[in-house]
């Protein structure tokens, strides 16, 4: 697909010592970006290492100010790292200006040229590369077909709807067949329905063109549904790097557990391990819980946060029996239902545990008896030890 000079460079590299697959499309090595703000220096990005594979849909996820946009702008060439190296297809591009980098960007504001037609916008990049006129025309037409805007080629951007402008911005970047496409919160300005259909659309286009996508977002749902891998960023650092399932199922830090989805956090002390390799954690409330995984460097006696997702928590009006938890429950805690919220497909409960901590419990409304317990009812909650993880405090 990509037939620019970079692919010949790659094959040269491949012949030398490794296969093409091993050369990351994008590589960041100890990248730091700091700004001077008055007398103090602010670190926007504080040492990020990333390897993004060819053809991967990669998301940088985090709250605003976490450094995700700055990281992307350093890949695009709009910002130069204070320290560290940026590589594209194995080539060091640190210090190379944006117009000489084989990546293209879709801007949050779309940044379509308002004085040019849709077709002229899409042709802009190819014309800069001095692609022959006839080829420009056919490639622009083909790209506008891909984003289903062939009939809008002669219009001005201002005459299009938000979703259509978004697709023009995508086409304008993709038509150049870049080594990687950078998307800076591209769906942020769209309403919910359109955003959801564009998520599907983006994924389809990415599969069809096979180009590496780097996607910056603060929307965890977007990152989880579309990405092959996600880097969760906070305070200029990557907190966790992994597949959406890894990030969701095994959050590595308390920040990730909090930021992605809903988590119940119970504070306790590691009391010891049993023969099955499970760790006993004495909770603050006095109860005991079991966990299969302990973070590295956490020894017996240290304080940890035990995390368990609300949909993994089971609940009943009686203590769990052997049939309810064949491997034995990780714990069985007593509490009182303080709130029930009917959500259609599921019901959300807030349960105040004896000892003060409140946890969330999600139950699928799969049977006729939707409500397990009314508000104010005493309940028991438990979960499988494999579904709870201890995080360092």
């Amino acid at each position, binding site marked *: 697909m990509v037939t620019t000079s970079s692919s010949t460079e790659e094959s040269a590299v491949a012949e030398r010592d490794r296969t093409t697959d091993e050369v990351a499309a994008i590589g960041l090595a100890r990248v730091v970006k700091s700004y001077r703000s008055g007398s103090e220096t602010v670190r926007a990005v504080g040492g990020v290492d990333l390897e993004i594979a060819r053809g991967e849909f990669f998301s940088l996820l985090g709250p605003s100010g976490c450094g995700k946009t700055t990281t992307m702008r350093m890949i*695009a*060439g*709009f910002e130069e790292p204070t320290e560290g190296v940026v590589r594209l297809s194995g080539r060091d591009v640190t210090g190379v*200006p*944006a*117009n*000489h980098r084989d*990546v*293209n*960007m879709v*801007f*949050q*504001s779309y*940044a*379509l*040229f*308002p*004085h040019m037609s849709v077709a002229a916008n899409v042709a*802009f*990049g190819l014309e*800069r*590369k001095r692609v022959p006129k006839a080829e420009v025309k056919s490639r622009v037409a083909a790209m506008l077909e891909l984003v289903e805007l062939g009939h809008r080629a002669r219009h*001005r951007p*201002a005459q299009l709807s938000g979703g259509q402008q978004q697709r023009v911005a995508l086409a*304008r*970047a993709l038509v*150049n067949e870049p080594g990687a496409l950078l998307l800076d919160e591209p769906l942020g300005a769209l309403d919910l329905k359109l955003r959801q259909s564009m998520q599907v659309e983006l994924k389809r286009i990415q599969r069809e063109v096979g180009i590496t996508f780097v996607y910056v977002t603060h929307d965890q749902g977007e990152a989880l549904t579309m990405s092959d891998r996600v880097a969760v960023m906070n305070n200029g650092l990557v907190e966790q790097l992994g597949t959406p399932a890894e990030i969701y199922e095994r959050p590595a830090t308390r920040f990730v557990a909090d930021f992605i989805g809903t988590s119940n956090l119970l504070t306790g002390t590691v009391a010891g391990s049993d023969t099955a390799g499970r760790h006993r954690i004495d909770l603050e409330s006095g109860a005991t819980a079991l966990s299969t995984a302990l973070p590295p460097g956490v020894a017996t006696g240290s304080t940890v946060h035990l995390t368990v997702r609300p949909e993994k928590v089971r609940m009943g009006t009686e203590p769990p029996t052997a049939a309810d938890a064949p491997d034995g429950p990780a714990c069985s805690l007593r509490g009182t239902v303080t709130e029930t919220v009917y959500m259609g497909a599921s019901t959300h409960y807030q349960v105040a545990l004896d000892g003060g901590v409140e946890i969330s419990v999600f139950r699928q409304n799969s049977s006729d008896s939707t409500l397990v317990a009314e508000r104010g009812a005493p309940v028991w909650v438990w979960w499988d030890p494999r579904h709870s993880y201890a995080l360092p405090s």
Partner: protein
Amino acid sequence: MSAHLGTEAASGRGRTAPAAPARTVRPRRRIDWGRYYTWLVLAWLFTPILFMVAFSFNDPAGKHNITWQGFTFRWYANAFAHPTLNEAMFNSVSIALLSMVIAGVLGSLLGLALGRFSFRGKQLTNLVMFSAISAPEVVLGAALLSTFLMMNVTTGYWTTVIAHVMFCVSFVAITVRARVITLDPALEEAARDLGAGPFTTFRLVTLPMLFPAIMAGGLLAFALSIDDYIITTFVSGDVTTFPLWVWGSTRVGIPPQVNVMGTLLFGVGVLMAVVNVVMARRRS
């Protein structure tokens, strides 16, 4: 507005208490003050111009073209009968065009710098720019004259151009700066991202986006220059411009050709404004 609310309130009451006798609400005539005010302002603006145009068709009895005598096209046929007036008009137009171009270029660059970058002395530049606009023209004119005298420059055509450029630059810069500030910086980044170097980016993206503001600033400079009297009297030496000629001829009676030229100038101005609107409409 109030009448409208009144009917609604009445019908609302009718619904909640059907037993109450239906009240007939007499529709009150609304006086559209906004409309009258608009016409008043337009009349205020255009009456002098209408008089100027009308008196270019007047056939005055004596030297003074101040009372309506009769209709004639004579002055249009002899529009260029006063050689010194022609020369003054030519001076005014050429000085205005030069000021427009020079102040247009300098002011655009200044506006771009002030709107885009932060640099040492930016606030000072802003201050100087606004003081150039707000300073009384008499003071500026006198100061310029003493500057030229001190530097041993003979005042004339080019000192007038310099003076006009000086007071026009600020207007252009402010117009362009306002546009630069509202420009999305991502537009230029997008151009860079798509492979355009700094110069190509400026030519293909920045300049076309700023063009309406540059045009507006340039036309403003032209308009300010062509009818400037006060500063020009100080720095023009023995060069006469149109406003100076008109002022000089008041004692002996202003010939109707002045009205003719004024009308033509006004016509060109209207034409340019119309072209600008049409172009802007076609762009969007």
